[in-house]
């Protein structure tokens, strides 16, 4: 490139796109970023769902005890869960990441894993409240019917309550998954290497921000569209037995 040279619009457009995507096989960096983003999201999702189910189960079991009965162990667990949800929902994601990286895991070099773990713990708090909402919203008559038919508490939950609640919370759960996928971009602050990092690394070299940012934005959008499509399929599949 010669100093002082000006290019016609389309040529400049192409050159900048070339620079942002094709030169030195930079598209490979984006692809790697997509791969890392997906892996981190999957790990965070797994942690988030596990934590969410656990916390929601404890909180619901505590809140739905028969009047006059009070299990002290559940009381303690419920307290712990409430603190967890309050603290995680009450502090910014980015601050949590920085604390986990610089304070809690100050000796670890697994930036991506720390990021996934933090995102999972964060997502768990929100997922827990979504699941709890679903379980609590179901008519208590369903539980009573199950119990009076001779099913024990766990069986009633697994075969009667949870299948119905799951259907109701699916849209909200989908929301949370989408937010989680996009929140992976925050792990760049602790040196994580995912899709946003690829864009930052490339425009750090070229000093041309528009194309790398547009490229990653469209990649995030495609990932979310894919997720949305899968959730739509699941939702339709679950709705097959509905009378509405």
């Amino acid at each position, binding site marked *: 490139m010669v100093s002082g040279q000006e290019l016609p619009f389309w040529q400049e457009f192409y050159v900048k796109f070339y620079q942002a995507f094709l030169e030195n096989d930079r598209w490979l960096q984006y692809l790697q970023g997509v791969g890392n983003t997906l892996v981190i999201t999957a790990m965070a999702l797994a942690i988030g769902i596990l934590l969410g189910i656990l916390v929601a189960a404890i909180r619901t079991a505590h809140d739905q005890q028969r009047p006059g009965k009070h299990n002290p162990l559940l009381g303690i667990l419920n307290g712990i869960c409430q603190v967890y949800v309050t603290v995680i929902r009450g502090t910014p994601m980015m601050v949590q990441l920085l604390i986990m990286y*610089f304070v809690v895991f100050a*000796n670890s*070099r697994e930036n991506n894993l720390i990021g996934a773990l933090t995102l999972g713990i964060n997502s768990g708090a929100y997922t827990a409240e979504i699941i709890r909402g679903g379980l609590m919203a179901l008519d208590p008559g369903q539980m009573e019917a199950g119990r009076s038919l001779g099913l024990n508490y766990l069986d009633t939950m697994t075969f009667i309550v949870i299948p119905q609640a799951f259907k109701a919370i699916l849209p909200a759960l989908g929301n949370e998954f989408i937010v989680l996928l996009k929140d992976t971009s925050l792990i760049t602050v602790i040196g994580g290497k995912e899709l946003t990092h690829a864009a930052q*690394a490339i425009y*750090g070299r070229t000093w041309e921000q528009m194309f790398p940012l547009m490229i990653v934005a469209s990649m995030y959008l495609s990932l979310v569209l894919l997720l949305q499509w899968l959730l739509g399929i699941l939702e339709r599949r679950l709705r097959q037995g509905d009378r509405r």
Partner: protein
Amino acid sequence: MKKIIAMALSLIVILGLLAGCSNNTPTDPATDPAAALNLVKPGKLIMSTNAEFPPYENTDDNGNFIGIDIEIAQAIANKLGLELVIDDMDFDAALLAVQNNKSDIVMAGVSVTDDRLLVMDFSESYATGIQVVIVKEGSNVTMDNLGEKMIGTQRGTTGYIYASASPEDDGYGEDHVIAYDNGMSAVQALMNNQVDCVIIDKAPAMEFVKNNPGLTILEGNWVEESYAIGVDKGNTSLLEAINKALAELIADGTVQNIINKHIKAN
């Protein structure tokens, strides 16, 4: 009502076009040398910078801009008979300001690369920037085994760009380099043993080492690079004027005096 709005809108468009034209009206270069320059505002040399980069540019306690780049820009403005206006912003934004015609020049310890030449033009070099390696005291990191270690850098700096290049391009590969949002985070990670060393500009490196016991700077320079003044692509008249002024200032020793004043020989 619609007609009035339509007329008002078309009037605005026409006036905008006229204003656009008037900016480009050439003035007679023979009468006034400064008028021949393609400037954002006539008579003013607007410089965008990121005043967080001592000793090249920073602010004193009263908010005044000080540093090597500031003084050199002032000297150039004096030569060209222009008034220097300094615009402080983020590093990225300082570079974009020139491309978007919000400022005439960018001086922020900017080094020239091929990629950057695509979007901007650069003057001759006026100073040399040095990147060094910070390590923990007693660590086994040397200039030669950096490729086997984890390196912390600041995102967007040439330290990051060179170090994360593939080994064929004299880098260490992306897997050995971590980019942090600022130099302080990189140094904190070094203190935590999350990276083995930090590559950063020499001047901030000395500050970090001074303030964090247990850190030291490796002997020797990791890389030396030339700083230049950036102007909008295609603004040849301004570039030539700056190069001419800069050559005179280098020849009569002004530039060297300014640099010596800010960087103590050690």
